[in-house]
């Protein structure tokens, strides 16, 4: 244990994401890092959490780390496996999901996300996967956590396409539209990156809440395409514990496929 190597940036993201789930009950899981984060949270800060996969699984209890969002291991031993009509209609739109995890190719200062195209929609430079369930997760999950690595290509002034709405043009506009259009949730509440943890302030704009061990404010500023709000006293993200790292390395991702 004393030989434990220091946390990687991916591990810092996973641990910070897991901690953001403290006490949460029902979480809509994505594959990759969110999947590991959620499984870590279930073993640490949120033992009662139910994992929901958009493929149609509630209360998943995967015996191995699922590679895809529809891996058979999420079905066997789950509490309920249902049609996607039920999953999106009864569970998500019906208001039963506490936290949805999203990522994207681009995010703006208000937490709006692009997973559709880089460039013009009709003649894209890069064709991305599109919404999948992201658009309705953004609207209907009670809150949204975003996991993304920082870069000026992804943390942008203006999205090329708004796939999933966040705080729109700011908190006031977002609050009005959420009520008027009957959104089920209150939008993004946190963004976890490889450098830090961000929240949203009263303007609905992203603000740095803590800086990961080893990261600097210069790195943070240099990898965000707008002038990011940074309060005076930014605490450090508490370092991963020995046990958190052990769980990731020995149980959740022993081959290091995701968190390396």
């Amino acid at each position, binding site marked *: 244990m004393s030989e434990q190597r220091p946390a990687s940036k991916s591990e810092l993201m996973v641990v910070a994401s897991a901690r953001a789930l403290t006490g949460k009950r029902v979480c809509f899981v994505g*594959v*990759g890092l969110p999947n590991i984060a959620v499984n870590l949270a279930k073993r640490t800060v949120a033992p009662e959490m139910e994992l929901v996969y*958009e*493929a*149609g*699984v509630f209360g998943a209890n995967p015996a191995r780390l*699922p*590679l*895809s*969002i*529809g*891996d*058979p291991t999420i*079905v*066997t*031993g789950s509490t309920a*496996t*249902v*049609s*996607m*009509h039920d999953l*999106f*209609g009864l569970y*998500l*739109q019906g208001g039963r999901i506490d936290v949805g995890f999203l990522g994207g190719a681009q995010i703006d200062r208000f937490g709006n996300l692009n997973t*559709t195209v880089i460039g013009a*929609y*009709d*003649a*894209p*430079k*890069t*064709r*991305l*996967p*599109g*919404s*999948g*369930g*992201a*658009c*309705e997760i953004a*609207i*209907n999950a009670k809150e949204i956590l975003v996991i993304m690595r920082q870069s000026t290509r992804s943390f942008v002034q203006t999205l090329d*396409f*708004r*796939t*999933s*709405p966040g705080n*729109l043009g700011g908190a006031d506009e977002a609050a009005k*539209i959420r009520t*008027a*259009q*009957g*959104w*089920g949730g209150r939008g993004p509440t946190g963004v976890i990156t490889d450098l830090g943890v961000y929240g949203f302030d009263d303007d609905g704009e992203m603000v740095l809440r803590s800086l990961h061990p080893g990261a600097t404010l210069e790195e943070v500023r240099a990898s965000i395409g707008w002038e990011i709000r940074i309060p005076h006293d930014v605490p450090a993200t508490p370092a991963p514990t020995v046990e958190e790292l052990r769980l990731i390395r020995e149980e959740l991702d022993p081959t290091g496929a995701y968190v390396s």
Partner: protein
Amino acid sequence: MSSKLVSMREAIAAHVHDGDTVAIEGFTHCISFAAGHEIIRQKRRNLTLARMTPDLIYDQMVAAGCAKKLIFSWLGNPGVGSLHAIRRRTEPAALAAGESLLEIEEYSHHGMVGRYVAGAHRLPFYPLRSYSESDLPKVNPLIRKVASPYGGEEIWAVPPLNPDVTIIHAQRADAEGNVQMWGLLGCQKEAAFAARRVIVVVEEIVPTSVIRSDPNRTIIPGLIVDAVVCEPYGAHPSYVQGDYDRDNAFYREWDVISRDAAATEAWLQEWVYGVEDRAAYVAKFGADYFTQLTPPPAPSGSVDYGDYR
């Protein structure tokens, strides 16, 4: 009742025509690669391919020149990355000489599900709480607002999708086409009920008595089915719950193959054109290959319906 059992060759020849809208459904689970490959072999053209997640099968069909249009909600190699053949037909800079861009009609998952539901329920639209303040309605004029008759609120709607043919894969059916499946159910029921014609592909044909012993397990009645094909391992490289695992190695391998148009064509030559049918494809892998994909059993247990006479 009369048997609808036919070979895959017969099923595709009879029910999939040039220009059709085809939905091969199955969310990661039970994707009928066997049907997709036979469509490629039979050289169908100008198909509109509908699927929530086009997955590798539509990447292969696009690469083979079957498609003119995609209707979808998520375009990727699940758990791996991009669908490169489709990207080459959607990004102008990547387009090969003589090729044209695919037509694209794009929704979210709930929207695609809703399109099938509306089609299956014979409704002119399906209402849902999505798309609000997203750019998707700006690029897809078929995503529209609908006014509630119970107050000022407007929500969003998608139109029905009624494929000419829906193709699904499942664990078992009887010869009449009564289908039972377990594991992820996706939107197969809705896509099948919405379709004009339905092809069902299964791992195993069972007597009707097996179906009737657990009627709640039936997802599609033979009534709406036009052809039943028995095709063991017909969903490989996707999986069938309880029968075999997803071939994740192949999903990763496709990421490499499909980045290169020539390698993609070579793969199609070897694994699609170069095999007569799915049985030949399975034989080419060898029996051992599928043994290592077979999970130990995890039985559901039995419930009692009671014999009421």
